[in-house]
């Protein structure tokens, strides 16, 4: 666990210092028993000016990114923003129309063939008639250095379901089987395309707990989601795609910070809407009875102006945007906010 904490802290420090694409923090020692594994520390995924078009449709447009080994990265975007296309390009299931793609320093298909990548595709079918344990055995046999069978079942929360046929499982249980197939080969890099989409809140929490434990060995995790809270809570770093373009790249905090808007709230009986709108930095005013909420593009200036004018406000608080507001700002009406 100590190793995990160190690696994550390094990653966060690096991210906070300068968003993305710098030399990766080297997660030092990896957990025991993996001495034979190839060294980590290279960039797990590198895109240079990657474009992908389907006929006239541009699914990815000039995307540049570098994901150092050991990070847990969320790929965020609305439906059709290019998340699955990006993941399929990283996996070699799709070939980029332009630019260069390296997965673990290799051509994506070579990285797959070397058994260093695990993946959980969006609603990948599982073959009827197969038992959970048998699928895990198959997945283990396909990789050169697999985890133990019981280890895989335990990590995926499937220990009690090993003998069940896949056609008898619930949607959430099937997602766990897909997760088990993704981790069975003990990959350096794991892709999860909307992994919790069929899960209830409780299953989602349990799933991310399992995922964090798996990532703790210095592995790189990249997951696509449209659940903002998952990205906020789980990822070291968030990539936001919108219409095939990378519109934001950084920690959850840095993305929120990139959206200049702040909310300044206070209590002020009889506040005047016009006067409030004229205060420095204010771009929006909401007044409900005594409660005033100002949207400001410069909270410091707004608070100074209010205090300087002797406005008798009480209970003032300044809040940054939620990730959801940041996301809306990034992908909505003003994509230039990034």
């Amino acid at each position, binding site marked *: 666990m100590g190793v995990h904490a160190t690696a994550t802290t390094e990653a966060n420090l690096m991210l906070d210092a300068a968003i993305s694409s710098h030399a990766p923090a080297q997660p030092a020692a990896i957990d025991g028993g993996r001495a034979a594994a190839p060294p980590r520390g290279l960039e797990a995924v590198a895109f240079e000016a990657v474009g992908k078009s389907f006929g006239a449709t541009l699914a990815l447009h000039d995307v540049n990114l570098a994901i150092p080994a050991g990070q847990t990265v969320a790929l965020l975007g609305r439906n059709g923003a290019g998340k699955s296309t990006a993941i399929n390009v990283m996996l070699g299931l799709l070939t980029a129309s332009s630019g260069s793609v390296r997965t673990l320093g290799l051509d994506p298909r070579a990285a797959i063939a070397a058994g260093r990548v695990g993946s959980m595709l969006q609603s*990948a079918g599982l073959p009827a008639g197969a038992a959970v344990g048998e699928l895990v055995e198959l997945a283990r046999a396909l*990789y050169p250095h697999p985890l133990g069978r019981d280890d895989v079942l335990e990590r995926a929360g499937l220990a009690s379901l090993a003998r069940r046929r896949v056609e008898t499982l619930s949607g959430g249980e099937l997602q766990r089987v897909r997760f088990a197939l993704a981790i069975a080969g003990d990959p350096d890099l794991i892709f999860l395309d909307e992994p919790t989409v069929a899960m209830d809140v409780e299953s989602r929490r349990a799933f991310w707990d399992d995922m964090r434990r798996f990532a703790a060995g210095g592995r790189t995790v990249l997951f696509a989601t449209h659940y903002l809270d998952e990205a906020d809570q789980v990822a070291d770093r968030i990539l936001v795609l919108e219409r095939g373009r990378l519109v934001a790249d950084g920690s959850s905090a840095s993305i929120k910070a990139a959206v200049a808007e702040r909310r300044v709230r206070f209590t002020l009986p009889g506040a005047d809407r016009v006067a409030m709108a004229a205060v420095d930095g204010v771009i929006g005013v909401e007044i409900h009875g005594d409660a005033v909420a100002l949207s400001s593009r410069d909270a410091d200036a707004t608070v100074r102006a209010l205090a300087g004018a002797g406005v008798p406000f009480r209970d003032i608080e300044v809040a940054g945007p939620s990730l959801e507001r940041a996301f809306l700002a990034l992908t909505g009406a003003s994509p230039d906010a990034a």
Partner: protein
Amino acid sequence: MLALAFRFADRSPVAAYLRLEIRRQLRNRRFVIFTIAFPVILYVLYTAVLETDTNGPVAGLAWPVYFLVSMASYGAIGAAMSQANPIAAERASGWTRQLRVTPLPGSAYVTGKLLSAVLLTLPALVLVSVAGASVNHVDLRPAAWVELVVGLALSSVPFAALGILLGYLFDTDSAQGAMVLTFFGMAILGGLFAPIEAFPDPLATIARVLPSYHLAAIGRAIAADRLPDLVDVIVLTAYAVVLGGLAGWRYLRADARAHG
């Protein structure tokens, strides 16, 4: 061949995949009923239970021996073609995509299907033979039994290729229907139910171009304790090459499309 055998060493990926394929098919009720139980039941029914007007030998073979080869052939062809529906279903469900992002080579998927289809002819071949030996006291040399089972299993390769081709040509809704139609067409027109000797001329001509007829002819030669005719071997080999080539071409097309 030797290289192939080495690749099937216990923990090889292809062997693991093949093992799961065979287990899954043997759990499939439709497969067990139509390709294993059905030929055995029909064989016993038409040689030991129902009165048939065929008393004398057909094509030089006693009826219980002749029909044993027919039903063994029927079971072998059905089992060999049985991968059509699974391939169509697995393409639609995304299981083939999931396998593509593992180190299993894409070609191993289709090779595994071919090998499992051929290996899965063995239950019907063995059980029909056992029914012949036990119920009707069909008496072949021990080596001839082995030759019959192995000969018909190897002869089913073109049908395995045909099943794979159908799995790539048709989608989930129609693959099963296409396979059943082709299978019964082959079985009936190839003379597996009514002997070709009873066919009117035009039908007998059609029968002689079908691989099912030639597969059964190889079985009958072995049952009559003589070498199979070269023409039967040549026709089946030609079918294997052509159908295998077509299946491989459709597989490569599907593979290229999946890699957009």
